[in-house]
């Protein structure tokens, strides 16, 4: 499999680091472009362009960290901070706009109502992605 444009949505979880390391490994072969994005989801009681300073600071910190993870892998990544109502459609829209050929997402082990759950964002991306999707599932002993 060859990839030229990899999109890595990040959320600040531990799985992000490993997902980014995997993205760097996959990208090196073809010198693919990697974009890490963080989506700030804005509640409907606020205008879409509301600047929520603590959220922006948190997102900046996560993206700074993910940049350093890539640097440790000797790879340079682009980072972007998006603001939208829902994360899933935003990731898919971004993949379409940026012509990504792979979405690589880190998935943390989550339980909902006692069952393992991928969460709505991952499911939306799996259903609607315009390209291949790789999920990196964080092993939790």
């Amino acid at each position, binding site marked *: 499999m060859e990839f030229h444009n990899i999109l890595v949505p990040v959320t*600040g979880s531990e799985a992000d680091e490993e997902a980014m390391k995997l993205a760097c490994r996959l990208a090196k072969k073809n010198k693919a472009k990697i974009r890490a994005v963080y989506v700030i989801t*804005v*509640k*409907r*009681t*606020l*205008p*879409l*362009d*509301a*600047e*929520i300073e*603590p*959220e*922006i600071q948190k997102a*900046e*910190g*996560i*993206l700074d*960290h993910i940049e*350093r993870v890539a640097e440790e892998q000797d790879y340079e990544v682009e*980072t*972007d*901070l*998006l*603001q*939208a*109502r*829902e994360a899933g*459609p*935003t990731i898919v*829209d971004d993949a379409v*706009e940026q012509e990504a050929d792979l979405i690589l997402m880190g998935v943390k082990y989550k339980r909902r109502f006692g069952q393992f759950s991928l969460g709505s964002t991952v499911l939306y991306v799996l259903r609607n992605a315009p390209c291949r999707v790789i999920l990196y599932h964080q092993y939790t002993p």
Partner: protein
Amino acid sequence: MNSNWRIKPGDKIFRPRRIRRYHLRRVLGVAAVFSAGYGNVGSSIYYALGIVALAAMGATPIALSIAGILFIFTAFTYAEGTAMLPEAGGSASFARHGFNDATGFIAGWALMLSYIVTISISSFTIPPYLGYFWEPFKGSPIIGTLASMGIVVFLMIINVIGVKETSILNIGAAIIDITTQVSLVVIGVLLILIPNPAILVQHMFAPGNWPTFDNLILGIALASIAYTGIETMSQMAEETRQPEKRVPKALIMMIVTVLVIFAGISLVSLSAMTPHELANEWSRDPVAGIAASIPSALIRTILEPLIAILAGTILLIATNAGLIGISRLAFSLGSHNLIPPALSRVHPRFKTPYVSIILFSTIALLILSPGFFATDVFKNMGTLYAFGSLLAFMFAHASILSLRAKKPELPRPFKIGWNIRIRGREMPISAMLGLAATSIIWIIILITQPNSRWVGIAWMVAGLIIYYFYRRKQHMSPTQTGEEVGEHRG
């Protein structure tokens, strides 16, 4: 995250912030915008019909039709304004660009009143519809008002916590709403109007049914509340893909749908009930009155509980839309230095503007409180709603005219037709007529409705005082615009 890394003293990050908001790359389409708008405008028929009948009696369909023409003018004004300035704020935003910050504040503050009363009036009419299942909801003012207050408190809590909601909910609600209303009109026409067409003429024009001239004018003024809610579509513009094309398209779709359905429902209601029944027994739940008057027992058995549940749900969504609308508007006004920033404060955990949600919900509860004692509170809420909405519409029309005069070069993806030239500038006739008509109706309400007059004026004066002192504290003149401040500082 690597916990060893810290910014050291002297470190400076010069890189610009990454943020790339989606206010220019948005996700909503025509269906979502139409649904949000119809959810708000279309829900008003569930209470507006009864309020209009209180004044216009047999002339209710005529009052609604005349106000409908006014609604067309207003919708055109919003279509041009929203396509030109796709941002949150609606008429407040148009006024800020068309005049100055003070005018923007007045329009925004009036709009806030209208949103607060939307919350009160929509929640006030939910219990009467649910009265089908438990009579005290409709019959007891104390239980009814308590239930309305409970609804407002419930919505306040879920909005502070920030429950996830998608536009699919709006689309689903709009489809159910339109289907129910169309079914009711078709059933009413087939089973009531066609078998006895003379009954409509009798209910409209028989002695005692036709209103006095003053009441007809008041009825037209009150009918304007049936068409408020158009602001919601304007607020959705910042989330709409290609807003310059899709918002006007959604607005025009809504005008046609609303006018056809409202005309049908008002005619069927007066065929099903006498104006006195509509204005008294069924004033707070007029659509339930139509369902209860269907001659077929089988259809009635299905329709009555269905209307009770659907009207309750739609009004609940409208109440929530009012709460969402006002919190967004407060944040938008706060970000332009028009109201104190405390009102835009975001909760550190829930990430919602909790101060504005709690404050405005509390005011909505205060407006509901006379419901425990007074019998005419419903009509007063209606006139107060009209006071705020019409004032906001007046500013919207005036701002569109002002922008045509002051900033003719601004790109107008949707430009209203039928213009006349005044001093070399093209001026839309519909906006001029809209401005004149809304001003006249607003003045009529101001003169004839003492409760709304004093509450409305008190609200506006309180707002102007807050605005004046806030701007003084910020060392800004009241009329100065945000752009001017930027120029001076920059």
